[in-house]
C-alpha cells in the first residue's frame, strides 16, 4: 500500500497539470512501515527527455541526488517516484518496468524497493491515480490510501 496525504497527492496532480502535455516526474520521500510506503514529502524533479517528447520521462540525476540528500537530512528516505500519463490511463507500462531502478540495477527479483505513483492528466486536468511496485520481475498494482486530515479519516481507492 502507498499512503500519501491529500496535500502531497495534490502537489503531484498539480505538477502533472503544469507540465501537460509532457510527462512530469518526481520523487516520493518518506519511510517504510511493513509493506507500506508512507509518503511524507514529494519532490518535483526535472524531466530531461527532449522537450518535443510527450510520452517519456527521464528523471534528472542531479535532482535525484539532491532529493536523496534532502531525505537523509529529514531522517527519511526515497520510497518511490511519480510520473504523469498525459491523455492516457493509469498503468505501469513495459517502458516503465524496463526503466525502473530495480531493472536498471539488475535487481528486479528482490523485494520491492520503491512505489511508483502514476497520475493521469486528461486535456490538462488531473484525473485518476494509481501506484505500482516491481515484484519478482513484474509490475503489480498496490492500493493507495489518501490521508485527509481535514476529514479526520482516510479514504482508500
Amino acid at each position, binding site marked *: 500500500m502507498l499512503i500519501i496525504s491529500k496535500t502531497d497527492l495534490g502537489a503531484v496532480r498539480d505538477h502533472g497539470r503544469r507540465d501537460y502535455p509532457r*510527462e512530469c*516526474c518526481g520523487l516520493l520521500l518518506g519511510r517504510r512501515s511493513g509493506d507500506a510506503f508512507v509518503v511524507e514529502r514529494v519532490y518535483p524533479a526535472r524531466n530531461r*527527455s527532449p522537450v518535443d517528447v510527450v*510520452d*517519456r*520521462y*527521464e*528523471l534528472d*540525476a*542531479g535532482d*535525484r*541526488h539532491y532529493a*536523496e540528500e534532502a531525505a537523509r537530512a529529514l531522517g527519511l*528516505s*526515497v520510497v518511490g*517516484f511519480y*510520473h504523469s*500519463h498525459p491523455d*492516457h490511463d493509469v*498503468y505501469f*507500462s513495459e*517502458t*516503465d518496468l524496463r*526503466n*525502473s*531502478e*530495480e531493472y*536498471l*540495477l*539488475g*535487481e528486479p527479483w*528482490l523485494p520491492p*524497493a*520503491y512505489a*511508483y505513483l502514476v497520475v493521469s492528466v486528461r486535456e490538462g486536468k488531473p484525473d485518476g491515480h494509481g501506484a505500482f511496485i516491481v515484484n519478482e520481475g513484474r509490475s503489480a498494482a498496490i492500493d493507495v490510501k489518501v490521508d485527509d486530515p481535514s476529514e479526520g479519516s482516510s479514504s482508500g481507492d
Partner: protein
Amino acid sequence: MSVIVRLPTPLRPMAGGKDEVFIDGATVRDVIEKLDAAHAGLGARILDDGGELRRFVNLYLNEEDVRGLDGLETAVKTGDVLSVIPAIAGGR
C-alpha cells in the same frame, strides 16, 4: 583514504542492508573495485563488462557528477561522499 559510498535502496541488500559503507581508495574506480571486493556483485551493478560506468548509473562525488570531473579516474580524499544515483526513466 576512506570514502563514504551511499547506495540506492535496491543495492542495499548486497551490502548487508546498509545505506552507506566506508571504503578506502585513491580514485573513484579504486573505490568501486574495493566496494566489489567487500560486497561481491556490487561492482557489476555500477560498471559494465568493459569496466566503464554503466549508462544508467551516475556517480556523484560530493555534489559533482564524476562524468564532469575525471570520470572513474577522479581522485578521492578521506571524508568524500560517493553517491550511486541511478537515472530512472519511463514512458507510456
